[in-house]
């Protein structure tokens, strides 16, 4: 990056360290932290939306919709989530290619699932074979985001469903007594009140979501774990910056990153809870009122 770094073998000490830490691969490494943050920024709202849909469906009056919602919530109980992660990435990939196969491939009666292979015609490959490496990366990241949203959506649905049940019945009955329709009760009374009950569960999920981000590595995305392994591995003299096995230090950096991130989130959530409890008829709200008086 810097001109002084043109010949890394000739420099020493602090300058070597500076050049080493600003090499192209390292800049990729720093960017991969943005991948993690990007994943969180996209997944958190979409999981919330999925969860909201799931919880609303589970409360539905129409039996099949309610079953579907409950099945979605129950889906992730009892089974390790990592199985869902590994499953969905392959399953979604095959589903997308299968749909494209139906659309663009010349009509044949051969199914893509042939014994030990999943084969579609070249035009149906997603992303197409000519696409750049960046597109492949983006596609992999997209699959990971959808997978995270599906799995975390189920957890969020469970939390929101519980929060909706926790809103006092009397509130809903009063609203009905005022002549509100079901939709009005839902929009004007249930939703504004459920957030206080949902917040502890959602905060917990946020922490878990942060701690689930290294699983991106298992989904084949070049994330921070991938780069920590790549950069930390011992480099022979053939490399520009030869060094021994430094993976331990790279993982220490990741550990500190996650510890700081969860700690900051914890403090932020505590503040948010305080603010939301303000003026609420709960024990926390009461404590705030007493402290102010």
């Amino acid at each position, binding site marked *: 990056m810097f001109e002084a770094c043109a010949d890394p073998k000739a420099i020493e000490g602090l300058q070597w360290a500076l050049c080493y830490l600003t090499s192209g691969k390292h800049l990729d490494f720093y960017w991969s932290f943005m991948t993690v943050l990007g994943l969180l920024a996209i997944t958190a709202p979409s999981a919330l939306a999925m969860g909201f849909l799931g919880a609303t469906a589970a409360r539905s009056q129409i039996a099949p919709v309610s079953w579907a919602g409950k099945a979605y919530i129950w889906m992730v109980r*009892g089974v390790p*989530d*990592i199985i869902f992660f590994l499953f969905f990435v392959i399953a979604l990939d095959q589903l997308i290619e299968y749909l494209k196969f139906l659309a663009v491939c010349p009509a044949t009666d051969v199914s893509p699932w042939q014994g030990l292979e999943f084969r579609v015609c070249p035009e149906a490959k997603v992303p197409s074979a000519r696409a750049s490496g960046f597109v492949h990366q983006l596609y992999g990241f997209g699959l990971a985001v959808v997978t995270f949203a599906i799995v975390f959506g189920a957890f969020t649905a469970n939390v929101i469903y519980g929060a909706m049940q926790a809103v006092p019945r009397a509130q809903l009955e009063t609203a009905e007594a005022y002549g509100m329709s079901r939709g009005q009760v839902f929009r004007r009374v249930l939703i504004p009140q459920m957030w206080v009950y949902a917040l502890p569960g959602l905060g917990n999920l946020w922490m*878990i979501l942060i701690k689930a981000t290294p699983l991106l590595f298992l989904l084949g995305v070049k994330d921070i774990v991938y780069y920590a392994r790549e950069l930390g591995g011992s480099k022979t003299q053939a490399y520009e910056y030869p060094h021994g096995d430094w993976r331990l230090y790279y993982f220490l950096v990741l550990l500190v990153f996650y510890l700081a991130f969860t700690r900051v989130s914890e403090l932020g959530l505590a503040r948010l809870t305080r603010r939301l409890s303000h003026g609420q008829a709960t024990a926390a709200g009461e404590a705030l009122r007493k402290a102010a008086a």
Partner: protein
Amino acid sequence: MTCWETVQAYGLRAIGIGENLLPKTDFTLCQQFTLIGSGLIWNVYFGAVALICGFFLANAVALAKAARSPLIRKPADWFVFLFRGSPLFIQFFLAYEALVMLPKAGIDIFGIQVSTAWTTKAWAGALFVLFLNTAAYSAEIFHGALKSIPKGDLEAAEAYGLTGWQKFRRIEWPTMLRLGWPGYTNEAIFLFHATTLVFASAFPVLGQRGDALYYASYFADKTFNPFIPYPIVGFYFILLTLAVTTVYGMANRRLNRHLPSNQRQKIRLRPNLIR
């Protein structure tokens, strides 16, 4: 090969007994069920041993967290923060890289050569990480329970003349366990789920002796069909979860046996994710 022969050949494959070569072609449903089931041995081993050992450390850490002296309290706080604040996945990597750095020839302790190679194996290294991890999570649960022991119970104990160790052993500790048990049950379930991360992270699979997830992804890679092996692992884990709930439910009933039936704590299964 009949299904029974498959079971004989691969039933204990995960611990290195039976047929050496994994099936390469013509995968039958029976093979998938058998091999994935044999992989489950590892999950049960990691989960059970880590839970049993972790229980004792968790109790100690929970008490340390409640201690008045900061010299005892602070290290316990940091221990819990370290293991609860970071992903288990990273902890596995970190532990593995740290253990690999131990001198190959062994460490010399008072003239005795202690070999270090075994620590990088999953059965020891990963177990150690899981043990510390579950101890930290359980310690937080037990600490919360310790804080929520009803004041009246403690006053009653003092009125009976119980103090110090006697009070702890007969009143505080059983009440702490009773209050924390539902949370601890969930922790046990998640720990069993977390064992699937061992071979997916840093610890290498030696001689293709892996856990249930390892064999499932082996089949998924070979057959390009994720719709059979992954539901099989899911099925096995639902059975495992049911077994854990049953065992912990029995302990819960014992802890609550003195209470009138309407005051007993019920265990509610709350889903959680990777730590």
